[in-house]
């Protein structure tokens, strides 16, 4: 009796409990599979391969560059979306979040059409400087920025929207010009959200595959990032693919842990 009553209080009815269990298992089993198949003994050797180091370095550098560009452009964009009341702002907000749901390959094709040698803007760039953007490291950064920046923008925009406008007014009465108010009051107050948005943006950029391979191609040392080399290694050297995957998994877990403990709880991310 007691046993049954306790189950009734703490458990879930089976129509909910069983699918929940299946769902959790479905999400976790592949990760277990990855860990179980990991060539632990060969790992040091696989990971010190110069090609792996090259891909890892390229990934870290390009994801970081994409995040910095994302912050430089995305924070002001988020502020404008949150604070400027002009007709069309809502439409812009809807459009800039499109990359969130757009298949990345489509993003890559779109980038080619815009920045390719004969693209909307790319043709002028090529005429003017003889520089063609696609299939360069810069193209990797661009592709990652395109896909990842919206994560930062929507996170920070929500924070700007929720930030206390009263404090901006107080700063103005104390003689602060609008840029000073932004720099010394608004931005510091949304700091945790900026960090959270930047981490999300960085993690998304690090894992970018579709837009990168479409717009930047797959050249080792130049445009071949970690996800690309994982995909290629899977055909030639599955152990290497698993090793590379483990590295990306580790980075993701680190990001998740950092977000949970430091920023998601304390910050204003909703």
């Amino acid at each position, binding site marked *: 009796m007691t046993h049954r009553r306790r189950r009734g209080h703490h458990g879930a009815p089976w129509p909910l409990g069983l699918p929940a269990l299946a769902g959790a298992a479905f999400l976790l089993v592949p990760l277990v599979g990855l860990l179980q198949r990991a060539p632990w003994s060969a790992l040091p050797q696989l990971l010190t391969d110069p090609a792996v180091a090259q891909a890892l370095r390229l990934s870290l550098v390009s994801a970081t560059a994409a995040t910095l560009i994302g912050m430089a452009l995305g924070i002001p964009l988020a502020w404008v979306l949150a604070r400027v009341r002009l007709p069309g702002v809502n439409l812009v907000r809807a459009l800039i979040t499109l990359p969130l749901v757009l298949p990345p390959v489509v993003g890559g094709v779109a980038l080619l059409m815009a920045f390719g040698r004969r693209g909307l803007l790319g043709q002028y760039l090529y005429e003017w400087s003889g520089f063609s953007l696609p299939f360069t490291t810069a193209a990797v950064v661009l592709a990652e920025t395109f896909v990842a920046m919206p994560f930062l923008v929507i996170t920070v925009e929500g924070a700007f929207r929720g930030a206390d406008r009263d*404090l901006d007014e107080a700063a*103005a009465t104390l003689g602060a*010009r609008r840029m000073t108010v932004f720099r010394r009051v608004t931005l510091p107050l949304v700091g945790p959200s900026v960090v959270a948005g930047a981490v999300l943006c960085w993690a998304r950029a690090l894992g970018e595959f579709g837009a990168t391979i479409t717009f930047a191609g797959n050249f080792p040392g130049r445009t071949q990032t970690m996800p690309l080399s994982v995909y290629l290694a899977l055909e030639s050297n599955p152990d290497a693919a698993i090793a590379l995957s483990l590295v990306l998994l580790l980075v993701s877990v680190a990001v998740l842990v950092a977000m949970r403990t430091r920023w998601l709880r304390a910050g204003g991310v909703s």
Partner: protein
Amino acid sequence: MTQAGGSIGADERPVAVTAQGELCFSGRAERGGFALQVTVRVAPGESLAVLGPNGAGKSTLLRALAGLTPLTAGHIELDGVVLDDPSAGVLVPPEQRRVGLVFQGYRLFPHLSVRDNVAFGPRSAGLPRRASRAAADEWLARLDLTALAARRPRELSGGQAQRVALARALATDPALLLLDEPMAALDARTRLEVRATLREHLRHFAGPVVVVTHDPLEAMVMADRLLVLEGGRTVQQGRPADVARRPATDYVARLVGLNLYAGTVAADAGGEPGLHVALSGGGRLYAAGLPTSGLDGGAAVPGSRVLVAVRPAAVSVHLQRPGAGSPRNVWPGRVAGMEPSADRVRVQVRGEPDVLVDVTPAAVAELALRPGLDVWVSVKATELDVYPEP
């Protein structure tokens, strides 16, 4: 008592007429369908309390002075400088006005220490970090906050936060100081302490001070002059003592705890040398001769509209109709309610007219006063203050 000015049109464009350091506000400000229209001047060193019920336009007045809500007509001038004048296309933004504002709820920056909160103004004015912190330290010392300099606002008590907000506003060296409900966020006990120190600090401020409040005591204690707003208009303006003695509206009368009746001077004084007032709400009151009533000859003409103020303590309550006696005003009523306060009981009596009567708790016991009891009330004619309706 000054009434609000009429509509302010473009043809009445102001010329610089303010004295040195003086504040002149004469305009209209609109905020969310509500319009405030007042005219007021505040001399340097003078403090004006703006009193009024919620939604009277008190905060809108402060926001217009600070530049947070632009005027739609009229002008604001401070120390000879026009800050806002829509007809002339002049609008000085908040950050360029020499106006210090202590917000309701204080609005301290939560991410900055007390010192950096106070240093924010000097720093925004272009002082280097070190110099602005030094300036802040000076104000912190003056307001007895030095020990709290390193704290964050969330670590402060209400009274401390209020002083920090005051220090922060004063550190910008304002030519005009505005305080929005400075006591509202404090509990009753802190309020007493803070009121004394605040008054002391305001006394040292050289420019005009405008304090918004809905607490009449606060207004009386802190201000040299009162401005009472209702529905966006001035209903009364004057020295606290005058406003307290001769309220112009029911709202003010309630605030200062007086019985107030509107009425007209009756033609027939019954052959006596006093003044009969027929009250608009029913009933008649007899006031003593003109010298006490304070009416000039013209206003005492039969038919002119007057207000009659009576202190509740000047009214007596009786179980039977009082016999021969000096009070000239005697009427029956019924006790409608009783409310104890400090050392007396305020009794509401329904009659013609209704009246509030202050009696001692001993009198309540002796007369066995209770709601529903039929009583008689009396007031001496000399206790009535009759003055023209503004």
